[in-house]
């Protein structure tokens, strides 16, 4: 007995010693945690496989190569009913990216405008911004989507009628119709000119910053860049004999009633499902961005502005060179979460038949194949990936803007 007690005692002391070593302790916990995660992952996976098999539910990724058999209203890559479920995945993914990227662009523009307006000294402007923000921020997004889709759809002209602008842009219940640019031989030179212009502007900007640091002389970078990016390509465009024409939307109001209205294959059309989702997403997210921008600007102490004017900077320059760079440091991290929200909220598309990933893949494809597990995992990984890419980009931008100790 005694010897056993002794032995365990000595073991105890050894353990206690290890226990007191924080490094070893942390290592043990981490190994345990990883082990636990791996084990539960494996356990759930094998359980899942067994259950699926027992219930006779098909599994595996073979379905990605089978024919989908249904139509999709908007596809950025060639798609027909004979395409595979794999192509459906791509179509849905691109539609999600399309509405998210454009939505983020408009939400940011509108958000900055609203945020600055709310701080405006002009009473009317600041109150208008306040009312806009407080109203739209507090109405559920899904309702706003329905509003833009159903309420607005009902008030635009029907299929056989239209509202037109300059005879080339038209709106009716079938969507927004615009001329489509058709590029001809030689137009590639215009594209090269634009690219060259962008690269040149980049170097000019660097050179002018350096020169300003050294000599204090300024250089009209903006105008030079505009000239390089727009002006020179325009010259190239005309020099090449205008290698582009516009394909206008074609509207017919004669013939059978079914075929009246805008004709397929002419011009470019943005479907109402896309427009409604885009409007709702950008107008809703803009309210949050506006508040973030306002907070960011308010976070820059007034002393900074005063110091800037004491140095003789004009108010535009103060905003651009002193206030905004400092405000951005406060703005960017929460702005990133708004971008992520917008991407994830785009999945509400399913409510109004916009064919995003959740609608055509996690919806229709799931229902036609019944392979819930594979499809949901793929869909979640896509959103995770999109979110991580956005975060990474914003983190990079944030690091770029961060305060550099000098």
């Amino acid at each position, binding site marked *: 007995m005694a010897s056993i007690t002794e032995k365990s005692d000595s073991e105890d002391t050894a353990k206690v010693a290890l226990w007191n070593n924080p490094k070893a302790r942390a290592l043990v916990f981490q190994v345990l945690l990883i082990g636990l*995660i791996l084990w*539960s*992952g494996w356990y*759930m*996976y094998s*359980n*899942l496989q067994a*259950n*699926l098999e*027992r*219930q*006779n*539910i*098909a599994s595996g990724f073979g379905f990605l190569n089978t024919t989908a*058999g*249904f*139509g*999709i*209203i908007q596809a950025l890559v060639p798609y027909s*009913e004979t395409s595979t479920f794999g192509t459906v995945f791509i179509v849905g993914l691109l539609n999600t990216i399309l509405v998210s990227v454009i939505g983020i662009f408009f939400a940011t523009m509108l958000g900055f405008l609203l945020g600055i307006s709310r701080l405006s000294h002009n009473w009317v402007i600041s109150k208008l911004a306040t009312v806009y923000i407080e109203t739209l921020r507090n109405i559920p997004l899904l309702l706003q989507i329905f509003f833009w889709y*159903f309420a607005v*759809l*009902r008030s635009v002209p*029907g*299929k056989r009628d239209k509202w037109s602008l300059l005879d080339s842009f038209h709106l009716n*219940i*079938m969507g927004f119709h615009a001329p489509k640019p058709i590029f001809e031989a030689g137009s590639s030179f215009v594209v090269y000119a634009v690219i060259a212009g962008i690269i040149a502007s980049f170097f000019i900007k660097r050179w002018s910053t350096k020169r300003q640091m050294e000599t204090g002389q300024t250089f009209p970078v903006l105008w030079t860049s505009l000239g390089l990016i727009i002006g020179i390509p325009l010259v190239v465009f005309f020099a090449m004999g205008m290698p582009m024409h516009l394909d206008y939307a074609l509207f017919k109001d004669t013939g*059978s*009633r*079914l*075929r009246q209205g805008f004709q*397929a294959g002419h011009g470019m059309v943005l479907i*109402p*499902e896309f427009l409604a989702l885009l409007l709702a997403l950008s107008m809703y997210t803009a309210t949050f961005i506006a508040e973030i921008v306002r907070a960011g600007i308010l976070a820059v102490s007034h002393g900074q502005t005063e110091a800037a004017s004491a140095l003789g900077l004009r108010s535009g320059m103060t905003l651009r060179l002193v206030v905004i760079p400092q405000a951005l440091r406060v703005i960017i991290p929460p702005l990133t979460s708004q971008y992520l929200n917008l991407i994830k909220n785009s999945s509400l598309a*399913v*409510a*109004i*038949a916009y*064919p995003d990933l959740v*609608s055509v893949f996690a*919806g*229709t494809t*799931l*229902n*036609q*194949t*019944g392979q*819930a*597990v594979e499809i*949901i*995992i793929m869909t*979640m990984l896509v959103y*995770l990936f999109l979110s991580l890419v956005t975060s990474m980009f914003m983190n990079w931008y944030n690091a770029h803007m961060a305060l550099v100790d000098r």
Partner: protein
Amino acid sequence: MKKIVLSTALGAAVAVAASTAGAATLDDIKAKGHVQCGVSQGLPGFSNTDDKGNWTGIDVDVCRAVAAAVFGDASKVKYTPLSAKERFTALQSGEIDILSRNTTWTMTRDTTLGLNFAGVNYYDGQGFMVRKDLGVKSALELGGAKVCTNTGTTTELNVADYFRANKLTYEIVAFEKADEVVQAYDTGRCDVYTTDASGLYAQRLKLAKPGDHMVLPEIISKEPLGPVVRQGDDQWFNLVKWTLFAMINAEELGVTSANIDDMKKSTNPAIKRLVGVEGNFGQNLGVSNEWAYNIVKQVGNYGEIFDANVGPKTPLGISRGVNALWSKGGLQYAPPVR
């Protein structure tokens, strides 16, 4: 972060997969005291709530009949409204015991989803609805049309096949919820609304001006609609299957909810077996021998539920057509109770 998301994903997936399949559904139902029935989110005549909030319809009556067979009380049903897209997952995961929601019996659904179709309570086919003022008389004139429908349905696939086979172009606008399809079609976003013909008659009632719309003569598919259960529980499958058969047999034998008490005294052996005076048919299903008596007494025979929910005297005004008994030139046929 990634790990957490992934394991939640798998967790959710396991929750879906770890269900009561294989377990005795009937015992579970007896223990919990009600049948959990998956229905539509509102399709008049099939599954719809009335102004008092009670579910009615030919699909609802199938569930009520099952409850009558199990509990001797047709009211012991709880309903889960499901969109076309959600319905199969709800059944697979054990959230519902029976799916009775205008669901078409197809080979893919029968063989890959781990489900069994227990029969057909309504033989249907897909049709097209258009505005009368379009002047269209046949589906073959629909080239170039914009078509509204529900996602996750056979409808979506049939319409693609039909237009492709007839070399017609079309554009599909597919919504998840039926009410949104109706609304979009009503506002004029689409020229055509396509779904099961019965669904067209039902949904037409929801349009602003039902009289302005017509259903085209073409029926482009076979849509046998019926109740669905999970695969792997034969006892429960048998019970649902024979509930349907009992209603059809009752109609064939002239047994109705009104005369069934008198029929208990009938000398016809087939009727005696059906109403439970002779034989142990209920016991063999795992319920009481009064099972079919309770079904017909409380819910009605097949003809009665058809007439009450979708028949000529209802707003849907559908005639028996192919849903007449086989002995009257239709397709409804049930194996004998013996």
